[in-house]
């Protein structure tokens, strides 16, 4: 690891809240974000026409549903890792 410029400990610029936040930043809930990352990569699984939805092939509507999935997951991770005051 590279050398780091020394800084007094505890550093006066940060309080207990920052340290709590640092803990939250490493929260395991973040692994949930892997779901919307992996989902779009599984092209062979969703590259199909059936089942259709209102005449829209599976390939298209399932990816539009994927958008909702990514929004819900991200919002969930945000709520679960939030530091409340």
């Amino acid at each position: 690891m590279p050398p780091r410029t020394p800084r007094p400990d505890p550093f006066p610029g940060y309080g207990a809240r920052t340290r709590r936040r640092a803990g939250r930043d490493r929260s395991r809930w973040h692994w949930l974000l892997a779901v919307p990352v992996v989902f779009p990569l599984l092209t062979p699984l969703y590259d199909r026409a059936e089942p259709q939805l209102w005449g829209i092939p599976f390939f298209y509507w399932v990816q539009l549903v994927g958008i909702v999935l990514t929004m819900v997951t991200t919002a969930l991770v945000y709520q679960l890792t939030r530091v409340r005051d």
Partner: protein
Amino acid sequence: MHVLAGHRIEFTVFAAVLALVVMLGFWAARWRRPQDMHSLEEWGLGGRAFGNWVTWFLLGGDIYTAYTLVAVPALVYGIGAVGFFAVPFAVLTTPLVYLLVTRAWSVAHVHGFVTPAEFVRARFGSRSLAGMVAVTGLVATMPYVALQLVGLSVVLATMGITGDWPLVAAFTLLAACTFRSGLRAPALMSIVKDLLLLWTVLAAMLVIAMTPRGLANAFRTAKEHFDLTPNSGDGLLLGSANHLSYATLAVGSALAMFAYPHVLTGVLAARNRATLQRNMAALPVYTIALGLIALLGYVALSKGVVPLDGDLNTVVPMLFHQVFPDWFAGIALAAIGVGALVPAAVMSIAAGNLYTRSIYREYLRPHATPAQEARVSRYASLGVKLGAVGCILLLDPQFAVDLQLIGGVIVLQTVPAVGLGLFTAWFHRRALLAGLVAGLLTGLVMLYQIPQLGADGRTVVRAHFGGSAWPLSHLGLPTDAAVYVGVLALVVNLAVAVAVTPLLRRRGVPSGPDVTHPEDYTADEGDPALHRMTELVDGDAGLPTHAR
């Protein structure tokens, strides 16, 4: 004016909306008026104080550009399923960028960074690595600005306006209002853009809903159309040959999104971490709009829309002409027009900031005052816009498209230093530099090897720089699959960086000093460390830590 024949009402509405938006851009200088506009924090980042809504509009305007709005449905119209990659790309972007930008925001606020290159300088203590990151970012951003002009000229062409002067006029006005108001101009303009866009998308949905059997019919005609074409690469579905390239293009573009300097500009202007995180979760709403606009490609096919002069990018504007009344089409086209101006402004500001902080102050004038920085950045962003106009007028617009393709690949090569650097300082600065150079070279060579194919999918139209999917058969693999060049180059880049780091450590080559601390990456609004930062910025010692 005879060229406007039949488009008079449309053009009047279009021009009026654009004029209104530009006026708003000028007025933006007074919006949340800072005590002093003459610092880079104020001019180039809007005072780093944008809240939920403004950040939402700005980032949306920044990422979903006019070119995206015309090029994505054009691809869907032309080749079908492959053009839909913009949707999985955005699905992937959200979680990846969520993780990266919150840390980037914190460390940038604590240390006063305005650009990714400054972070690299502080984290790895290397001027040359930071310089390379800055130059890569600049080279990638400039054609992106030019591409917005291509988007604007497509819209103008469908109204019968082909001369150069309207483009020059629009960009001159944009340049003037950005020069005056800085990031506040595109931030305000993006709000109007979104209202126009929402209007357009809803109207387009209405059109689809009103046609008998709507989308189902569009998909059926599109399928019949693709079955008749000789090209095996098109169709309603990807087909196994396209699986890998579709997925890698989505991943590569998502990571590149983070690496583009203009996205970070929008991010750093946010007020606090929560604003950013909430926005990341909500931004995909734009993707739903983009997905629906992409499907307009099929609607255009089923309605028998013929692109103007064979330019596929004109498909959506032509569709608007066909299905909307004139005044309505004028508003819809203005949405695309403003959609070109907003990102062009943010990109040129980002490029200006990059030049100022990582080249001007690093190499030319190390003790520049904040006022000098703001001035240099203003003129640099002006220069970028002029360069973009020149590129379009003097050279072939196709050149801008090619450069943009290359830009996406090369900007991706800064991800190990900028992205992984947010999580670890393990990499040796020289290893990162070697990886970056290796990645850039690999990417360029691979792009050079890709020919552009004609409509039948076989004849070679152009021998080089014709696409970004690199066939794995080049490696002697018995497959017809292809991979996005950017991702392959990034793999080479990372492999070099990982392999060279322990070698340099063993040989005792000193690492650069890391002036950031672990807590800096989670600092938030309200922390004393950030308050001190604000005081430093407001005073005349607004220097990032590494330069103090």
